[in-house]
């Protein structure tokens, strides 16, 4: 087990990289997922169809395939996802700005894939708001966006937050795939480095990696439990 202490810096830097991509992907997925959710509940049929098509595509494809398209499809189309090298942001999240685009590709794949689930979590919250609320807002003359902004979304939030949290937890675990698509040095890929290249024993390394993921996911789960209990009391 000494590898946990001797190679602590390797684990820590893997943890840090995974945390970075998860943080960025969560923000991206929440934004994109919200947009798709608005499309899916909009009163305009073509927009609804577009939102539904998005969800049907990305919810039903394995993440590996989405990663595959991002990491090999985008370069084939001549893109290195340079639009993600956002000035300022690439200082904090240094991998965003590097010449090797695999971090950006993996980020795109995680965002695209997770957004479909975020959309559905948000939508389940919207569906939990009684239909009469939106009807009353419409009958007052509120537009669709005003209706969402002032009546539906404030009430759907409480019903969305727990499923949203589960989606983010799943995303953190899914991020373990990125090492297979060119990203070097995330928590999972660290295991490969330490065991195949460094000759460290497998089981202690796997335990160390597991602890790394649990540090991210368990507090998030506990936070969700608290939110859920608070809601139960408020009800």
């Amino acid at each position, binding site marked *: 087990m000494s590898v946990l202490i001797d190679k602590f810096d390797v684990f820590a830097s893997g943890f840090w990289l995974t945390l970075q991509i998860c943080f960025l992907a969560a923000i991206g997925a929440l934004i994109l997922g919200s947009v798709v959710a608005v499309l899916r509940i909009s*009163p305009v049929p073509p927009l609804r169809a577009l939102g539904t098509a998005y969800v049907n595509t990305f919810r039903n494809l394995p993440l590996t395939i989405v990663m595959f398209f991002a990491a090999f499809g985008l370069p084939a189309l001549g893109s290195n996802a340079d639009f993600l090298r956002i000035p300022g942001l690439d200082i904090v999240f240094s991998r965003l700005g590097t010449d090797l685009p695999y971090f950006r590709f993996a980020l795109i794949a995680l965002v695209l894939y997770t957004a479909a689930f975020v959309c559905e979590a948000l939508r389940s919250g919207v569906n939990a708001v*009684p239909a*009469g*609320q939106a*009807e*009353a*807002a*419409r*009958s*007052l*003359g*509120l*537009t669709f966006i*005003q209706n969402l902004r*002032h*009546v539906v979304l*404030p*009430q759907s939030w409480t019903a969305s937050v727990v499923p949203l949290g589960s989606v983010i937890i799943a995303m953190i675990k899914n991020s373990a795939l990125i090492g297979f698509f060119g990203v070097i040095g995330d928590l999972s890929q660290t295991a490969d480095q330490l065991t195949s290249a460094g000759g460290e024993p497998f089981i202690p390394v796997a335990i160390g990696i597991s602890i790394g993921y649990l540090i991210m996911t368990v507090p998030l789960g506990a936070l969700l439990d608290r939110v859920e209990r608070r809601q139960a009391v408020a009800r």
Partner: protein
Amino acid sequence: MTTSEPLIVLESVNKWFGPLHVLDNVSLSVGRGEVVVVIGPSGSGKSTLCRTINRLEPITSGTITFDGQPLPAEGRALAKLRSEVGMVFQSFNLFAHKTILENVTLGPIKVRREKPAAARERGLALLDRVGIANQADKFPAQLSGGQQQRVAIARALAMQPKAMLFDEPTSALDPEMVGEVLDVMTSLAREGMTMVVVTHEMGFARHAANRVVFMADGQLVEDAPPAEFFANPRSERAKDFLSKILTH
């Protein structure tokens, strides 16, 4: 503004829910200041009729005009029309996350772009009018059903509508709270508000309505002044309906 031109006109309106013909060639016109009460057995299409007037239910065929304009398609024009037609629902539908006063001022502030202070002042006046000004800072769930429904009426009035639609406003209330809501509606009717009221309250129909419309199986069967309708219903369906509800 000519008073002779009706405010609400439905012409040959048909509505299908899948195979179900819920509105069967319904024509109806409501004059300015007129109070029309719609009665009929459940499933007769009277709620649907009420909800087509502000297009909460789109119709399959026919035309509906409000204040001389055909109902617009979904969009800004329809939102504007809805802001001119107050609606009161069976289940109140007060915004659960907003206070009573916020419920009443949301429309004026967001739709009419009124100054919050002015909207609040008028909102309080309206709440006072329906007798619940002292509950302004509570949330809907803290009020009784009758109080909630009176807030819902105040909320609709805050938009200064040209007409009010009531979709079974007392059907979800405990019996002792029906009166307080009907009182507010009666005073509105006396002041000349144009009203379409779907209800089972025959007393209200008798003393507040200008006309009673009887619906059965999606058809508009009778349309007569209340005294005439209750004394001499012409159709068998209406006779049958009245005999069932008035003998108890």
